[in-house]
C-alpha cells in the first residue's frame, strides 16, 4: 500500500543544519528530512540522505541523544564544469533527544536508495509482579 502519490511534490531547498561546534573541514552541513514513528516495541526513524553510502553513516546514541550523520563524496568528475547549480551537496547531521530507553544492542540500521531506516527497540519494561498476601 502506497501513501498518497497523486499530489505533486513541491520544491524544498535543503536546510542547512546548525552544528553545535564549528567544523574543522569546510563544507555545508544539511538537515535530513525525517519520519519518526513509534510502535509499542520500537521507534523507527527514516531519513533522506541522498548520496550517502552505507559505510559513511555514523549513528551514535548516548545519554538519550541520538546523532545521525553522513558524509557525502562529491559526485562530479574532475573535468566537469558547473553550468547550472540548484542544490549544494555536503554532510548530513541531525540530533534528537529520545524520551524512551533504547536497547542499544538491538539497534538496526539499513540504507537503501539514499534512505536510512533505523529501528530503535525499546527496553522491555519490567512486567509488574503480582504479590499476593497470604492470610495466616
Amino acid at each position, binding site marked *: 500500500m*502506497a501513501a498518497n*502519490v*497523486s499530489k505533486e511534490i*513541491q520544491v524544498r531547498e535543503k536546510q542547512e543544519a546548525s552544528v553545535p561546534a564549528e567544523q574543522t573541514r569546510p563544507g555545508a552541513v544539511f538537515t535530513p*528530512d525525517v519520519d519518526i514513528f513509534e510502535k509499542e516495541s520500537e521507534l523507527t526513524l527514516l531519513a533522506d540522505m*541522498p548520496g550517502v553510502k552505507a559505510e559513511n553513516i555514523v549513528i551514535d546514541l548516548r545519554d538519550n541523544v541520538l546523532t545521525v550523520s553522513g558524509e557525502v563524496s562529491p559526485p*562530479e568528475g574532475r573535468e566537469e564544469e*558547473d553550468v547550472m*547549480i*540548484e542544490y549544494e551537496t555536503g554532510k548530513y547531521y541531525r540530533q534528537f533527544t529520545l524520551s524512551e530507553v533504547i536497547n542499544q544492542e538491538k539497534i538496526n540500521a539499513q540504507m537503501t536508495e539514499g534512505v536510512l531506516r533505523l529501528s530503535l527497540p525499546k527496553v522491555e519494561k519490567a512486567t509488574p509482579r503480582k504479590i499476593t498476601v497470604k492470610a495466616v
Partner: protein
Amino acid sequence: MIYRPMFSLPSWRFRSSFSDLERMKQQMDRLMDVFSGYPGRGRSAGVFPLVNLTEDRDRYYIRAELPGVKSEDMEIQAERNTISLSGARKVAAERDDVKYHRREREAGTFSRMIGLPGEIDPDKVSASLADGILTITVPKAEVAKPKQISVKRT
C-alpha cells in the same frame, strides 16, 4: 475639453512599484551571481527535483537527489536539446498502529523539463541511480563539441 487627470491612478502606481521591485530583485539576483563567482548558482527553477547541470568536453551531466525513488518509477525522455524527467516518489505506508512523531518526507509525483545549452545526441543518453542520486549522462552532438583548430603558418 481636455481631460487632465488630477491624480495618477493608484492601481497604476501599485503595478509600477511592483514591477520596479521585480526588476530590483532580478538585478540583485544577478549581482549575487557575480559575487558568488559561479554562473547560475543560487537560482532555481522552483520545480522538483532540483538539478545540477555540469559539462565536460563531450558530455553534459544532470544530477538530481531522489532518495527513495525506484528506477522503475521514473521516466526520462531526451529530445534535441531538452531532457524531461518524470516519476513518482512513494513513501510506503507503515502499519496502522504506528504513531507518528515527525513526518517530513514527502511523497508525490514530479515532472521536470531541463533545457540544455547545446544540441545533444538523444540516442546515446544514459541514466543511473545510486544511493538516491540520479545521474543522466548526455553526450553532446558532434556539431556542439568544441573543435580544435590549428593555425597554419603561411
